[in-house]
Structure formats: C-alpha cells, structure tokens
C-alpha cells in the first residue's frame, strides 16, 4: 500500500505531534486524511495505518464505527451533507434535504449510480446563523434555498 508524498508527510507530522510512545493518538486524523486520498477506509488502508501505529486493525475498526465521517465504503465524488438540525430546520433545512433527495434520486447515505454524488442528512454543522447550511466535501454553502442547491449541483455536474 503506497500513499502520495503529500499524505506521507501529513501522516508523519501527525505521528510526530504525539508525545513519544503515544503515536496511536494520531489514529483519528490519520484515518480521515488517508480516507480523503483513498476515498474509503478499505481493509488495506486500515491495516496500513494500524501497522504504522502498532495497533491491531480491530482497534482501528472500533474507532471507525464510532465516528460519522469515517467510512468503509466510498462516498460520491461530491459528498453533500445537508443539516436538518434545529436552526436549519426552522429555516427550511428539511425541505432542502428533501429537494436534494428528489433531484439526485438517492436517499440518506446513498450514492448516485455514476458515483458522482452522495447524500447525508447531517447533524448540526456549526453554521446555525446562516441556515440552512450544507457541506460539499469540506466546503460550506450557507443561506441555501432549493434554487441555490439546483445551481450548485448544476455547477458540480459541469466539473465532470
């Protein structure tokens, strides 16, 4: 299993940020950064990260099943997380999420057949004052409307 030089540097930095002998502390960010590059935490990726930290793949698996952003199967190239928690719900977050389901033809935690889009009904994203809010991968889109969402998906489709 080989990673890109950028990811290798990132993983080394993360391990160095831990006190000596405590390298396994870097597990969660290491998994997340690795997943960003590989698309999913396949057994191969998990075994490699676990090996570097001197833990068992099972110990890594325990952690993966806890955190909502860590995933064993790939998401779409554009992963849409739409918040429907309180502040967003009060300003149309549920309607926005419903619109995304219809537009993309998928439901929560599903991926479009072409692998381009995936959808997740998210818990609070920390953008409550600019609700409803959503994420495309790591980029925030705030004060959303169904029309703005359509335009956003249009622009992402053009990026093929």
């Amino acid at each position: 299993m080989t990673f890109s030089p950028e990811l290798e540097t990132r993983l080394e930095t993360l391990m160095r940020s831990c006190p000596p002998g405590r390298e396994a502390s870097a597990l969660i960010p290491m998994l997340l950064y690795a997943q960003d590059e590989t698309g999913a935490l396949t057994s191969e990726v998990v075994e490699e990260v676990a090996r570097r930290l001197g833990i068992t793949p099972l110990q890594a698996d325990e952690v993966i099943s806890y955190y909502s952003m860590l995933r064993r199967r790939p998401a779409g190239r554009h992963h849409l997380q739409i918040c429907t928690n309180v502040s967003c719900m009060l300003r149309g977050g549920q309607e926005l999420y419903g619109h995304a389901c219809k537009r993309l033809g998928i439901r929560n935690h599903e991926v479009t057949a072409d692998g381009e889009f995936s959808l997740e009904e998210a818990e609070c994203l920390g953008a409550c004052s600019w609700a409803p809010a959503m994420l495309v991968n790591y980029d925030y889109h705030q004060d959303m409307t169904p029309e703005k969402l359509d335009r956003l998906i249009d622009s992402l489709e053009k990026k093929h």
Partner: protein
Amino acid sequence: MLYNQPSPLEVKVLTRRFGLPDSQSLDTYLATEGFQGFRRALEMKPEEIIGEVMASNLRGRGGAGFPAGMKWSFVPRASSKPKYIVVNGDEGEPGTCKDRLLIENDPHQLIEGMLIAALAVGAAAGYIYIRGEYRRLIEIMDRAIAEAYRKGYLGENILGSGLRFDVYTHSGAGSYECGEESALLESLEGRRGVPRIRPPFPAVAGAFQCPTVLNNVETLCAVPAILRDGGAAFAALGTPKNGGTRLFCLSGHINKPGVYELPMGFNLLRMIDEVGGGVWKGKKLKAVIPGGSSCPILKASECDLAMDFDTVAKARSMLGSGGVVVLDEDTSIVSLATRVMRFYQHESCGWCVPCREGTTWLRKLLERFHAGHGTLADIDLMGDLARNMLGRTFCPLGDAAAMPMISYVEKFRGEFEEYLNRTPGGPLGRVTIDG
C-alpha cells in the same frame, strides 16, 4: 470572512480584528496590540496570571460556565509530569457557530491565549481539537501556527524568554459527544469518544493522563485582552461574577441572524429586537432556546432577562454555549422536540444505559406521537423518562437530552394535548425519519 453585518450595539473585544484586511496574519495581529498580553504575562508569576484571569470573572464559554481562572488553579504545577493545554474546538451544540469565526478571523489570538495559559500552569505543548467538518479552519490554524513558529512566537526560546511551547491541531471525525471534555480527551488519544469517569478531573489527569487545562476556543480567545488590559477591565464589561463579553449566535426565526459580541448580561428581548432585528415576517415570539439545544426552552413571557449564567440559571434554563434559537408563534413544539431528540439519540455514545435507552425511547415515543399515533399517557411518560435520566449518566449528554424534554412537556403541555387531536404533520411539516 464575515457572514453577517455587525450590530452597532456590539462591544468588540474578541472580535475587534474581524473584517480587518489580512486579519489571519501575524503582522495584522501584531499591529493591533497582538501578543501584548503575553508580553505582560512573561513578567508575571504564574499565580499572578491566574489571579488576573480570576479577577476577570471569565467563565467557560463552552457551556458549563465554570470560572476559567479557578480551572487553571487546579493544575498541580509541582507535578513532575508534562502539562498540556487542550483547546475544545469541537463546536457541535446545535445553535452554536462562534468558535469557527474566532479561528477563521483571528487565529493568532487563540495561539496567544494558549501561550498565556501555558505560562500560568507550566505547559510545554498544546493541542487544538477541531471538529472534522471544519477542515478549512484546521488549514487556517495550521498556517497561523507555522507563521508563529517562523517568527519566534512558538517553538523554543519564545521571544527570548526561554519558554518552549509547541502547538498542534488535531482533527475530529464527526461526533457531538467529543465536545464533552473527557470524551474529547479519549478522542485526542485515538479512541472512541466515550466519556471518562471523574474524578480525576482533567486538571490532574487529562491528556495522556497528565495535568491538563481544557478550555473552549472562545474562553482562551478572551485571555489575551484580560492580560493586556487587566482582569478588572474585562470584568467591568459584564455583570457581577459574569465578566466580559461573549459571542451570541442568533438563529432561527429572526430578521438578522448572525454572531454578535455583546456584554454578558445583555437583555434577551433587546438582543432579539434591537440586535437581531426582531422576529421574522412580523410574527410574534413564541419561545427561545437560550444557549444551544441542550438548554430548557424559555416561553416568550420568560424572555425579559439578563443573559448571564446566573440569571438564566435562575430562570431554570442555561446560558450554555451562546446559541440563541428564536422560535416564532407558528413553531410546532412537537416537531421541535422530535427533531431535537432524534439528534441526542443519534449522538449518544451508548456507554451508559440511562442515556442510550432513554434517548432511544424518547425518540421512538416522539416519532410515534409526531406521526399522529400518540396517547395522552405518552405525554406523562416523556416527562417521566426524561426525569429518570437526569443526573444518572457519566457525562452531561443524558442531562442535555432530558432537560429540554422536561421543559417542552412542562411548558407546552397544552400543545402536545392539542396535537393528539390533529392529523399528522404540524405547521413545520412532517419530520423526515430517515436512516
């Protein structure tokens, strides 16, 4: 980046650099009194620094409102173990969106706050734990840290003082529970975010079982101004025992939602009307969640109060994390309760039974009720279930789910009863139950 217009009623202490050109850079920071608090702290004894923070009446901005100076004083300086500063940037309490602005607009202020805390307790390293969704903020923080190293504000022999301090960012990966301090420490150490049994508290056995100061982003961002201008000056901005300003996040049914820095003790109704431009669409105020979704709801008639920790506590709610959620007269409390409980059930780590089972059953009850299949007995059961969770869990998540639930059925019982007589779906439409 600023996402809302500032209000003329704001008192800008922590947010004074927001909107300045290049506010993320160390040059801008230094040109605007940056690191003056730290320079002052370098000439003080550790107990004097802690004394200054105590005099400021700064209380934890993550939600608990514990006096920050007292928290620092619990760290055993004499311990031979390394000491750590851990910053809680997990920001997950629904209604709260302030820490991200402090990191995005003024990352060096946080670094300076950590350095002052390090001097006070004798720490040599600090970790900034930031929720995984905030990747762009982690990148901003990483750039600011790198700049501080290059220019001698981090690393060895800082400003020629002999002090050594290292700072690292640490990404979360999606978990509300990791905003709870002991779960955060578990996550920082590479494990599931399950809370620890306390005592020992983090001040004695925190990160890597070493003495640790664990503060919210906003708490530490207030520290440079306290050391620069003095604790008394900061305290004078607020009300007795509630020093300074805080960042209030206005959201929900309000004309000008946004994050505003206001003095502690600012009147809630005035905040809604004069800072937030009033309830939207000319509607009447129904209720307010004063400090994030874990706080008991306040009816409109209870909202004429000073927003400080003690006054809101006297009103049997909490100032919490500063997330002020405004609800207009058309809001369905049944829909609100259903969505809120779905959240807590989703986020319960599952370790202790009252929380795991309590949130699950409350969610099931509420979803059934919301779908139009409730009974009168369900309303009592919701309150009973929630009261039996209170104080019976290892961490505050169980209470965070139970307290608002109790307030919904106590204060809006009539609405629950009325809901029984209606077809499914309130004014907000049906809550989608998916996944």
